[in-house]
């Protein structure tokens, strides 16, 4: 049966193979701005591209574009439009036909690039593309589908080929939707804060927060307080300990405001402080209800025990008054 499907579809698209489509023109000439944007986004620091001084010792006089930018110059804009003067033919009509016949999944399989020469600032380029091959129906780990190979030619204004590429796609049959099936993306897990890892030594601390208390370890033998939790007292080596509930009052010993990298799910800037609790131990935490510029070493703060997500309560700290404000807000909501 596969053979029949294969034959039928191949007949349908035969006229779309080996058809050179183009030109697809460039929106802009090769420019320093775009080269810089690319290099900074890709982390490509090759001095050949933008370092005018470096280039004096090379054969290149002007800003030189990274070869891998080849495809970028004549690609569609963000609205999907090709530059003026481009053909209005759809280069990927064959892929659309496959899609309409149930082969809607697409995966890039390989992308072999050949670069013939560097582009220099001011050059205008265009490209042509030809779908050169389509296999019979194949069965892979992704399902059944066709391998389609595209040959792209990248040309300068005087039709000099500066780069070419052979790209292979696998266009495959996607599973039929079941009634009541999940919406696409609905099984993507929401990024949440990482959970502390609990063990015999520290579980009391995290359980305390779930119970609405900030607990500090206290040595049963010499009464020394300690945080973060550890099993043995540093002062007297006793293994016996209990906890006291912290008042939640303290002052900022030091702080930082995190700007980069922005790691989900946190909001940035993210103000973090080391709080000296009035009981005498320090605890690192997030600040709340305060502008970064208002944070000062030595300022008094108080705990705002906060359910930061469904399964996590943390002892955030804010300026005096934050705790009662948070409480009032909570009462209004309930």
């Amino acid at each position: 049966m596969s053979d029949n499907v294969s034959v039928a579809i191949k007949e349908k698209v035969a006229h779309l193979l080996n058809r050179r489509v183009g030109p697809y023109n460039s929106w802009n000439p090769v420019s320093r701005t775009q080269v810089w944007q690319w290099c900074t986004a890709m982390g490509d620091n090759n001095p050949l591209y933008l370092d005018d001084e470096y280039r004096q010792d090379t054969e290149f006089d002007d800003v030189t574009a990274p070869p891998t930018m080849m495809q970028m110059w004549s690609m569609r804009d963000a609205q999907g439009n090709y530059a003026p003067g481009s053909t209005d033919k759809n280069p990927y009509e064959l892929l659309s036909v496959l899609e309409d016949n149930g082969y809607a999944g697409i995966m890039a399989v390989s992308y072999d690039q050949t670069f013939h020469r560097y582009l220099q600032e001011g050059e205008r380029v265009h490209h042509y593309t030809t779908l050169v091959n389509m296999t019979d129906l194949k069965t892979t780990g992704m399902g059944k589908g066709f391998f389609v190979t595209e040959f792209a030619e990248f040309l300068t204004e005087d039709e000099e080929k500066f780069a070419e590429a052979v790209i292979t796609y696998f266009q495959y049959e996607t599973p039929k939707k079941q009634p009541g099936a999940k919406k696409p993306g609905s099984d993507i897990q929401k990024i949440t804060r990482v959970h502390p890892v609990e063990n015999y030594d520290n579980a009391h601390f995290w359980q305390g927060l779930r119970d609405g208390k900030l607990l500090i370890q206290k040595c049963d033998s010499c009464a020394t307080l300690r945080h973060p939790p550890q099993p043995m007292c540093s002062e007297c080596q006793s293994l016996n300990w209990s906890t006291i509930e912290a008042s939640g009052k303290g002052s900022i010993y030091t702080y930082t405001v995190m700007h980069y990298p922005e790691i989900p799910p946190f909001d940035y800037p993210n103000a973090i402080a080391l709080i000296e609790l009035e009981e005498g131990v320090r605890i690192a935490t997030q600040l709340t209800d305060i502008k970064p510029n208002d944070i000062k070493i030595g300022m008094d703060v108080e705990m705002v025990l906060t359910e930061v997500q469904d399964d996590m309560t943390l002892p955030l700290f804010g300026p005096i008054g934050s705790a009662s404000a948070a409480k009032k807000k909570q009462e209004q909501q309930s």
Partner: protein
Amino acid sequence: MSISRKTAIVGIGATEFSKDSGRTEMQLACEAVKAALDDAGLKGSDIDGMATFSMDNSWENEVLRQVGGKELKFFSRTEFGGGAACGPFVHAATAISSGLCETVVIYRALNERSGLRFGSGQLFNNNPMDPNIINFSHYFPYGFMTPAAWIAFSARRYMHEFGATSEDFGRVAVSMRDFAATNPKAFFYQRPITLEEHQASRMIADPLRLYDCCQESDGAVAFVVTSAERAKDLANTPALIASARQSIVKDSRMMTPFYGESISGIPEFDACAGEIYSMAGLSPDDIDMACLYDHFSPWVLPQLEAFGFCDRGEAKDFVKDGHISRGGKLPVNTHGGQLGEAYIHGMNGIAEAVRQIRGTSVNQAGDVNRVLITAGAGVPTGAAILEKA
């Protein structure tokens, strides 16, 4: 029995430093070890000991087999990230001078940029047996999860207690980038920065700006350490290990030393500096240059203080007066440091110390006889003095 001057670094080797090595850490390790052996004029079969970082992913047996080795009598690892940069030399010197073995290869290979980036906030797993995770559990839930942010706590205290400013940190970065600019091996070769550019660079974790932070790099560095006796028969000028020590103090933590009486200094270096000098019979005045661990520029300052080049809180003036810069009385990180050359967990700095002693650095600081080297700050760490034989 002292280990002082009983052993020497006789070979150094490295791969190129990059943002994407395109090969495994294992290959990088083998390449660097082979280069270090070649540099020493030795063969794989001459190795009978190895030392590296606990964090290194390349096992000793695998490296040994590939570099033509036959047997190891001694191998050791050192914990605590970049704090491990001096430990392997302590171990090698101890093992060799006690007769356990004769020739130790030390290596560190990492794809820190193309692989797991330490600054990405991804250093977490759910293994309750992992001491890193038990420690980090008190910080990650708040988003307090990058080395720059952890270091910022101390940098902020240092500013508060001694009146230092972001510009004082910036001068460290400017100096390192100046050295890197004339080091073709450096990532920032020919790319110096000005203090104005430092001040204009974006905030990463206040008060740390982009140019206060080291790079993230792929690469490997390796060394050959052997007895001072055997070193005499080899081609290179030996870099004697005049002193070397590891250091953990009561308040040491893994990247989060927030609970000691003072957090503006580096208590591990305060604790070991005296012995680093006395073991070698030297004083700060005898040191010609230094390769100090510079993951973040603010923590170069308290290192200068701990090792007695200036008084507590005065490193900002020492730096401002140009003493750590090109032509200064104590040039620091003439290869460009981890801020300018590459982040190979401090090992590229130790290689530079050896080149300075040999007189082969691209930024040679005159006739260098003695170099102070340090491992990571903010973690259990170590230090050493290398000396021209």
